[in-house]
């Protein structure tokens, strides 16, 4: 797998929360090259199992990796005089929507534009106001009757943005949150193919994270792993945002700690990074991490959970920016962590004995 090419493919695919099918197919294609078993659960989570190398009869412990494949998006709510009104799916800053190109997934895919009014017609007061949702329209350039035949209420809409390579190994695009994690999981599986690991690895591309960590909730229950790691994106350093709120893009994986993270999972990840000289960044998270880790941690009787974040600028816009180097490092860190898992660590975590 080529990290850049796979990220481009995933980023340009469409998968608004609840409508992740086409992204799932791309992930399936990649994961299945390294997995022993593949399945899709009731909610639509893609689950790849790569078995550990213990004797067949011996029950094995397991780790679950979770990265979500859904993206924030829009939904048609009304057809009005040849234009579309819409609602948001997930957390949007309405200010980034003006003049964006979109794809309306109607009877066929229709390229569209989120309307703007030309500056010539605007009053000074109007230019001082953030355009509210009830004054935003999507235009697919079709007359009213034609539009009615191709689009209906409930059709999903994705932002359109081609993957862009910036300088210094940075890339920009949409839905890196959290397709970048899907890339990291594939990279981890790829590394593991040439490594020895005794624990089973479940790599899970989850659904509906952006609307409430829903896929992680059910997939963690179904898998019932011994431990879990969520892979998500973390706010990257950018002009105008205090350093306390960010981690450095290109600075390596951000390893979370705080109430959502098991302290021994954190320290083991840090030790692994140190041992293999992978640059990393401690990432203090005082409460809700806003990631799949939040749901994983309280599944069943509770699961020791960690969070590894990919530094990313401009989250929830169509120009999310990250460093390809960080993706490579996350994949490597995860694989080395997994290869290091043993019964001694299980004891340290206080995991119950493996049921026989």
């Amino acid at each position, binding site marked *: 797998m080529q990290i850049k090419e796979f990220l481009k493919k995933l980023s340009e695919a469409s998968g608004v929360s609840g409508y992740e099918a086409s992204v799932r197919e791309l992930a399936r294609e990649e994961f299945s090259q390294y997995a022993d078993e593949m399945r899709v659960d009731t909610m639509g989570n893609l689950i790849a199992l790569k078995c550990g190398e213990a004797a067949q009869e011996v029950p094995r412990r397991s780790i679950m990796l979770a990265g979500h494949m859904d993206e924030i998006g829009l939904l048609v709510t009304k057809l009005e*005089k040849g*234009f579309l009104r819409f609602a948001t799916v997930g*957390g*949007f*800053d*309405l*200010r*980034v929507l*003006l*003049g*964006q*190109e979109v794809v309306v997934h109607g009877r066929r895919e*229709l*390229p569209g*534009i989120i*309307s*703007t*009014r*030309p*500056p*010539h*017609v*605007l009053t000074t007061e109007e*230019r*001082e*106001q*953030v*355009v509210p949702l009830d004054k935003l*329209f999507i*235009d*697919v*350039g*079709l*007359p009213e009757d*034609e539009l009615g035949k191709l689009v209906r209420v409930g059709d999903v809409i994705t932002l359109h*943005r*081609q993957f*862009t*390579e*910036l*300088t*210094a*190994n*940075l890339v*920009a695009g949409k839905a890196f949150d959290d397709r970048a994690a899907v890339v990291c999981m594939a990279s981890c599986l790829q590394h593991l193919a040439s490594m020895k690991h005794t624990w089973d690895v479940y790599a899970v591309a989850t659904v509906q994270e952006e609307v409430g960590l829903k896929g992680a909730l059910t997939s963690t229950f179904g898998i019932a792993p011994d431990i879990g790691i969520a892979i998500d994106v973390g*706010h990257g350093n*950018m*002009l*105008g*945002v205090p350093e306390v*709120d960010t981690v450095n893009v*290109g600075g390596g994986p951000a390893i979370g700690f705080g109430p959502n993270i098991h302290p021994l999972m954190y320290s083991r990840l840090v030790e692994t990074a140190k041992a293999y000289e992978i640059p990393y960044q401690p990432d203090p998270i005082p409460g809700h991490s*806003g990631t799949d880790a939040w749901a994983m941690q309280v599944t069943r009787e509770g699961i020791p959970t960690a969070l590894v974040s990919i530094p990313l*600028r*401009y*989250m*929830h*816009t169509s*120009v999310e*920016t990250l460093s390809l180097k960080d993706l490579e490092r996350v994949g490597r860190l995860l694989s080395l962590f997994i290869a290091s898992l043993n019964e001694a660590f299980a004891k340290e975590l206080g995991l119950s004995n493996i049921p026989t």
Partner: protein
Amino acid sequence: MLLKELSEAFGVSGHEGAVRQLILDAIKDLVDEHHVDALGNLIALKKGSSKTHRKVMVAAHMDEVGLMIMYIEKEGSLRFRPVGGIDDRVLLSKKVLISDNKVPGVIGVKPIHLLEPKARQQVMRVQEMSIDIGASSKEEAERLVKIGDYAAFDTSFSQVSGEWRTVKGKAFDDRAGCAVLIELLQESYPFDFYAAFTVQEEVGLRGARVAAYSIAPDVAFALEGTICDDLPKKRDASPTTALGAGPAITIMDRSVIADRRLVDLLVDTAQKHGIPYQFKQPGLGGTDAGAIHLSREGVPSAVVAVPSRYIHSPVCLLSLNDLDNTVRLMRESLAKVQELNLSH
């Protein structure tokens, strides 16, 4: 399609060279003479077939609104300002290309997660924005860009199709006018046809002013890609123009009161040939005609435009039906312009 190449070409006001070259290649075999003047206008002459002939100037501007790099921060981000009229609000979360080297960059914004609820209701000013090219230091950025570089939106042209034959792309204001003017040069005319592809319209009709002086035309037309504002609205004031309703004829805008005889010629021609047309709602916008009609002792001038939604933003939309009808309307009207009585 030539409109695609024109739309995707880089030509912010003051930096129209790439667009000019594209147009020159398209017209050089269609005209008798051409030259580029001191400001960068491309002026082409197609000589008339009749003995006594008028000089008719038809202008379309090559420049587009865009950005200029003003300052490089020590962290490698680029501060910029608009060139021409751009609403600050359309800039966030867009991709741009910087200079003729087309260095890609993105205009980022603080993520919603880190915004106070009040900040979400505040318009972000261009002064607060920056372009991220991936550089992490001033030195790294300076290897790719320099202060004073122009940046344009990176928008690819594509067909949307449907009954209106809609297309989308950037800079239809005024590459649509350029496309119409190039098409008009395919024909022969009895009068001397001066095609002026002008510069710097968006920063004050600068190119048209000197082009009109040097041509000294008897009659002039400006071709535009003009404002549509035909979205559903609470108060149903008339839109400026409507997509798909045909070429827009200007009665009056901020810069010119169109010559009534030319307006009548356009309207009569449209009616005679069954070409759909509409009037642009008076009062809004300025065009090259604003500079041309005041050249020397004055020039009777009119404006015909292809309606285009979302001009002065990263992506616009127009109907090829409207564009074709603009060509037809101009062609048929020009055929009669020699007969027009222009004395008062």
